[in-house]
C-alpha cells in the first residue's frame, strides 16, 4: 500500500492543477542539482585557457538545467516506487501535486532547451555530452538498470560523474585526461555513498521492490563491497598527484580525507548489528558527501590561488 494513498488523485474528475512553482522546483532535485553545479564548475575552471564569464555562466546554467531535467524525468518515471518509500513519499508526484505526464513534459522541455542552448551558444561536443548524460540517467539508469540489477547505481553512477566532463568540453571544445580523472573519482565514490544509504534505508527499497545490493545480496555482502570500492576510490582519488595532473596540496588532502573514508568503511564492515552498525552507515553517508565536496573544493581553490597569485606577488 502506498505511503500516501490518501492523496491519490480521482482521475474521473476534470483536474485543475494546483501545483506551485515550488513543486516544479522540487522536481528538479535541487540538492542533487547543487552537487552537479559544483562538480561542473570545478571541471570548467580546471580547464586550460580563458573563457568569457558569460559563456562560463551559460555553460554551467545549461548543465544545471540539464541535471534538473534528468531529475524531473526520473520522478515522472518513478512515481509508483517513490510513493512506497518514506524518503521519497513527499515528492510532488506521490503527493498528487503534479501528474507524471506533467513532470515528463516539464523534464523533456528543459532537457531540449538545455542541450540546444549549450550546443548553439557554446559548442556541440558539450551539447552532445549533456544529451548523453540525460539519456544515460533517464533511460539506462532509471528505466532499465534501477529495477533490474543490484549493479544499478554502479553503472548508473556514470551519469552523475559526467557533469565535470561536460563542463570541461564546454570550456575547451575537447576532452583530456583531467576530466576523465574527475569522472573516475565521482564514479567510484557513488557505490559506497549510495550503498551506505541503502543499508539504513533497506526496508524502503525492499518495500518498493528496488533491487539495491543490501536487498538482493544482503547487508554483509554490501559491507564488503563498500570497503572494496572505498579502497579503489581512495587510490583513484590520490593517483592524479603522482601522475602530475593535480598538485601536492590536493594529493595530501585526498590521502587525509581518504583515510577518513577508509576508517568509516572499516567501521561499516566491523559493526554489523545494533546502533553501532546504524551509526556507522549514517556517518559514512554523511562523510562521503563532505569527502567529495572537499576534494573538488581543493581543486577549485588551487585554480583560484594560481589565478590570483600573479596579481599579489
Amino acid at each position, binding site marked *: 500500500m502506498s505511503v500516501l494513498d490518501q492523496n491519490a488523485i480521482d482521475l474521473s474528475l*476534470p483536474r*485543475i*492543477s*494546483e*501545483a*506551485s*512553482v515550488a513543486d*516544479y522546483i522540487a522536481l528538479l532535485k535541487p540538492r542533487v542539482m547543487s552537487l552537479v553545479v559544483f562538480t561542473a564548475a570545478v571541471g570548467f575552471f580546471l580547464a586550460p585557457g580563458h573563457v*568569457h564569464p*558569460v*559563456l562560463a555562466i*551559460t555553460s554551467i*546554467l545549461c548543465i544545471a538545467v540539464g541535471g534538473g531535467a534528468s531529475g524531473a524525468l526520473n520522478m515522472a518515471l518513478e512515481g509508483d516506487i517513490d510513493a512506497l518509500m518514506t524518503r521519497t513519499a513527499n515528492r510532488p508526484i506521490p503527493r498528487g501535486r503534479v501528474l507524471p505526464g506533467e513532470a515528463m513534459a516539464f523534464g523533456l522541455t528543459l532537457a531540449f*532547451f538545455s542541450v540546444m*542552448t549549450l*550546443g*548553439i*551558444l557554446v*559548442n*556541440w*561536443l558539450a551539447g552532445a555530452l549533456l544529451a548523453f548524460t540525460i539519456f544515460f540517467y533517464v533511460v539506462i539508469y532509471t528505466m532499465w538498470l534501477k529495477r533490474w540489477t543490484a549493479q544499478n547505481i554502479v553503472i548508473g553512477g556514470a551519469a552523475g560523474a559526467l557533469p565535470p566532463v561536460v563542463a570541461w568540453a564546454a570550456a575547451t*571544445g575537447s576532452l583530456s585526461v583531467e576530466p576523465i580523472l574527475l569522472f573516475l573519482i565521482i564514479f567510484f565514490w557513488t557505490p559506497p555513498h549510495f550503498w551506505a544509504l541503502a543499508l539504513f534505508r533497506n526496508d524502503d527499497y525492499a518495500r518498493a521492490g528496488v533491487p539495491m545490493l543490501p536487498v538482493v545480496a544482503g547487508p554483509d555482502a554490501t559491507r564488503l563491497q563498500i570497503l572494496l570500492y572505498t579502497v579503489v576510490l581512495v587510490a583513484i582519488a590520490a593517483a592524479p598527484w603522482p601522475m602530475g595532473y593535480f598538485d601536492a596540496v590536493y594529493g595530501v588532502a585526498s590521502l587525509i580525507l581518504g583515510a577518513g573514508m577508509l576508517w568509516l568503511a572499516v567501521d561499516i564492515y566491523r559493526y554489523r548489528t545494533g546502533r553501532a552498525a546504524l551509526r556507522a552507515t549514517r556517518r559514512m553517508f554523511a562523510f562521503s558527501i563532505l569527502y567529495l565536496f572537499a576534494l573538488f573544493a581543493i581543486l577549485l581553490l588551487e585554480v583560484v590561488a594560481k589565478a590570483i597569485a600573479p596579481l599579489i606577488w
Partner: protein
Amino acid sequence: MDTKPKPDGIVLTEAQKKRRRERSLAIAWALGILVVLFFAVTMVKGPGVLVRPM
C-alpha cells in the same frame, strides 16, 4: 437576443488562479532569461556566434 443560460464549465478557485498565475510568471521569467542569455552571448561572440566548433 440569446436567453439561454451559459454553462458554468470549469470555474477555477482562487487558489487555482493564484497558482496558475505564479506558474505563468515563472515561465515568463525563464523565457526572459533565455532571451537575455542569447543576447549576451551574441554580444560577447560578435560575428563569431555563427562559428560553432564540434
